[in-house]
């Protein structure tokens, strides 16, 4: 590999999981070996929590209940807006309520395998263990999960698993789980245990004597830049799919909190691991601001096809059966339209690259329910998929009962994130990272209904337990605004904000965001090549230069200025994009959602390279002009045997 793009540093290892006991005992053993904080001492300890999604909201509430002083931060007006609210499908738990052979071990096994053997066994096993407690907690909070007529909880099979372990609340599971955490958080705010900081964005981390001790934040309403201090900092700021500009994330979802922590020394793990969801509504035009996901359950009855001929612009209903290519059924006769997310996405890209895509720009494939409507009858299709069909009609103005829907893949989750050990602590002592913001549990590919499980596992159960080991050494020496580390951090933030406003060029933040996003989609999306990634890296460096010389942001910093907010986030996305491409370039294997063109089987399927790449790539930031440093954490599989996935 070229040493100009990165260098290799010392290996890194998780030292916290007690590997001297069997995997099923490690979590309880870790809790036993960890140190505790006496309840009377907890009120002397302050914890900052950034973000109020499933992970941050549940953590802030739980830490408040435990008696710590918590300071909670979110950029929206209310904690209830966090993007966890948009998760549709469900949450996995190894309850085995269906008596179908599920168990903690099976959920563990499925998740390690589903992650294409790039996740840590210890973390995943703990996730599976804790999953059952999450359901108990949420039900007690009043989360209205779907129920059977007997009054007990309903389950469904999700994402191709053979057991029914997914709990759900219609198509709004994330919303309902988030409101459970939100209400618990509001209860703690009312009780005075949690300080609320609405519309406040973290812009830097303050490190004192090697420990994370606070943050610099900007009040988005007044523009005021302020410092906040604590004995520990928890980052729960979500994923970074918006580096692609178009994704299914909320418009405000950003990488700023984790990226700035990365620049302060936190290693960033597997940044190139992103998940691309196959059943989203395609792009309509240049003005497109976001993409909308439709549940992949649609593939249970819909058939995916494109015309056999390139450039066939006929009305799909006029294309005879003999001139259609049901390509998933053709290539994967045994799984057909139900192949995993990564394969469905990549094949859609392939047929569009061949010029057989449909709709505006040729970036779409048909998802056809004509056969299902004939077989099941329209009322049955309506009952099963009505809300999704309505959503499609609302957005596209087309009637999916009359004509096939058009779908295209879109980025919707990032498995990569800040590196954490088993205690969820980053490489900066005292800074913990939870939920999608960390890298820990999903390897190279996340299974359906696992994101909600991980967010709540981290926030309700794991972090509140592990953080006490760290805090047992506290409270730490008092720090205030006058500390040199705080002064330096505040100054850096002020300088950046002023710089963004002073360039006065000719391009808006959105135009840079679109450009870098398109580049990432083209070269660091579903399929990557050595050549393409190098081209992208060169181009990103140029975009970065242009950004800092030709950006235009109106207004001032001491008021509500959404353009300024966006500009700061785009600056971080551009830097992250480069690291993602370097990570993708160095990982010369196909795994999970990442198809590396140079690593494929003779049949053109993804080829993993366990011999050379069975490790976590943890990247260390280096000052301007120096390449990032790669630290490898070897992945050891003691309980699940390495195997190649096959869906033929």
């Amino acid at each position, binding site marked *: 590999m070229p040493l100009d793009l990165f260098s290799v540093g010392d290996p890194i290892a998780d030292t916290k999981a007690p590997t001297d006991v069997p995997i099923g005992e490690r979590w309880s053993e870790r809790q036993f070996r960890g140190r505790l904080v006496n309840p009377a001492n907890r009120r002397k300890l302050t914890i900052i929590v950034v973000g109020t999604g499933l992970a941050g909201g549940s953590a802030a509430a739980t830490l408040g209940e435990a008696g710590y002083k918590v300071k909670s931060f979110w950029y929206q007006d209310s904690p209830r807006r966090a993007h966890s609210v948009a998760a549709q499908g469900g949450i996995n738990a190894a309850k085995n309520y269906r008596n179908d052979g599920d168990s903690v071990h099976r959920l563990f096994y499925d998740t390690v395998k589903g992650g294409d053997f790039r996740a840590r066994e210890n973390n995943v096993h703990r996730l599976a263990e804790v999953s059952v407690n999450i359901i108990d907690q949420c039900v007690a909070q009043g989360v209205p999960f779907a129920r059977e007529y007997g009054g007990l909880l309903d389950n469904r099979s999700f994402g191709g698993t053979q057991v029914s372990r997914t709990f759900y609340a219609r198509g709004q599971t994330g919303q309902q789980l988030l409101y459970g955490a939100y209400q618990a958080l509001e209860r703690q705010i009312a009780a005075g245990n949690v300080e609320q900081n609405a519309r406040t964005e973290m812009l830097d981390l303050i490190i004192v004597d090697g420990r994370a001790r606070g943050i610099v934040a900007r009040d988005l309403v007044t523009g005021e830049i302020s410092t906040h201090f604590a004995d520990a900092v928890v980052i729960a700021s979500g994923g970074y799919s918006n580096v692609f500009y178009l994704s299914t994330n909320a418009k405000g979802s950003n990488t700023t909190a984790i990226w700035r922590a990365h620049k302060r020394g936190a290693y960033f793990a597997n940044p190139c691991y992103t998940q691309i969801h196959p059943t989203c509504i395609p792009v309509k035009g240049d*003005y497109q601001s976001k993409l909308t996901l439709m549940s992949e359950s649609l593939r249970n009855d819909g058939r995916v096809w494109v015309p056999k001929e390139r450039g066939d612009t006929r009305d799909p209903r006029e294309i005879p059966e003999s001139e259609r290519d049901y390509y998933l059924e053709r290539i994967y006769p045994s799984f057909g339209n139900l192949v995993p997310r990564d394969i469905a996405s990549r094949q859609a890209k392939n047929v569009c690259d061949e010029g057989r895509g449909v709709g505006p720009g040729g970036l779409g494939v048909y998802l056809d329910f004509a056969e299902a409507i004939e077989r099941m009858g329209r009322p049955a299709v309506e009952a099963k998929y009505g809300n999704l069909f309505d959503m499609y009609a*609302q957005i596209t103005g087309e009637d999916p009962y009359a004509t096939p829907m058009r779908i295209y893949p879109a980025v919707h989750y990032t498995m990569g994130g800040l590196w954490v050990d088993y205690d969820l602590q980053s490489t900066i002592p005292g800074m913990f990272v939870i939920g999608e913001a960390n890298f820990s549990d999903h390897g190279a590919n996340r299974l359906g209904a696992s994101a909600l499980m991980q967010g709540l596992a981290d926030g309700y159960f794991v972090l509140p337990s592990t953080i006490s080991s760290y805090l047992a050494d506290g409270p730490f020496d008092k720090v205030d605004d006058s500390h040199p580390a705080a002064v330096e951090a505040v100054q850096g933030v002020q300088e950046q904000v002023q710089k963004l406003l002073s360039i006065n060029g000719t391009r808006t933040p959105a135009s840079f965001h679109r450009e870098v996003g398109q580049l990432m989609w083209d070269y660091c999306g579903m399929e990557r090549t050595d050549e393409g990634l190098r081209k992208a890296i060169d181009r990103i460096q140029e975009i970065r230069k242009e950004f800092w010389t030709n950006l235009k942001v109106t207004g001032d910093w001491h008021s509500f200025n959404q353009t300024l907010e966006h500009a700061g986030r785009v600056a971080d996305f551009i830097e992250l994009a480069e690291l993602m491409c370097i990570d993708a370039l160095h990982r010369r294997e196909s795994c999970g959602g990442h198809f590396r063109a140079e690593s494929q089987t003779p049949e053109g399927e993804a080829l993993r390279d366990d011999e050379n790449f069975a490790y976590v790539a943890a990247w260390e930031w280096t000052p301007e002009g120096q390449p990032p440093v790669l630290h490898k954490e070897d992945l050891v599989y003691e309980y699940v045997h390495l195997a190649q996935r096959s869906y033929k």
Partner: protein
Amino acid sequence: MTASMQSSVGNPADEKRGMNLTLRIWRQKDPSVKGKMVTYKVTDISPDMSFLEMLDVLNEQLILQGDDPVAFDHDCREGICGMCGLMINGQAHGPQQTTTCQLHMRSFSDGDSIDIEPWRASPFPVIKDLAVDRRAFDRIIQAGGYISVPTGTAPEAHATPVPKADADAAFDAATCIGCGACVAACPNASSMLFTAAKVTHLGLLPQGQPERNDRVVNMIAQQDREGFGGCTNIGECSAACPKGISMETISRLNHDLLGALRAGARPKS
């Protein structure tokens, strides 16, 4: 389902491309100054754009001209976070019963003039232009919109069965996204539908029973303290609600409130 739904395929924009519109938008620099309606023109607006994408187009133009873009709240842009909300031609979220982000420009015609204003209610003060402060809603939740169950104390999930009908009705009420359209649509600026949705959600579940009386009296007391108006059963709230929260929730709240007061429950001061 949209009224103007087309059954054609391909790019529907081809058939109805390039609308020119006049926008009259509320501009207010901050809460301390008076706002006013300002007129803008936008051209070549695709009917496939969402309403917020149309505002994005306007804002890109304004930034490049060196003018202050229009501030408006939004986030998920898929109708679930509740962050967006505009009065469009005098209707909360515009002419369709959906969130502003899910309203599309095909609901308008070439040459239309569109009035765009923020939510109007004194408990929702304007922050800037079209963005308002809705933290009053969070304070109503803080007053009792929860079940007190510290993490780790929960019994086994199947310990208490919940009749499916109750669970389904609780879910319907729980779908409230807290956008504030109910308040904006109400001539009294009442938050009754918002409060009633939470009282109904939690009151229908066995888990919500121990705090049922205290919850309703405290949440009502808080919404009064915030300055929301009284409910006179007009029903504009439910008609504007993007999630279709029903007026029955208000009946249930009134029933619960009466029961709670009879039982001696009184709000915390």
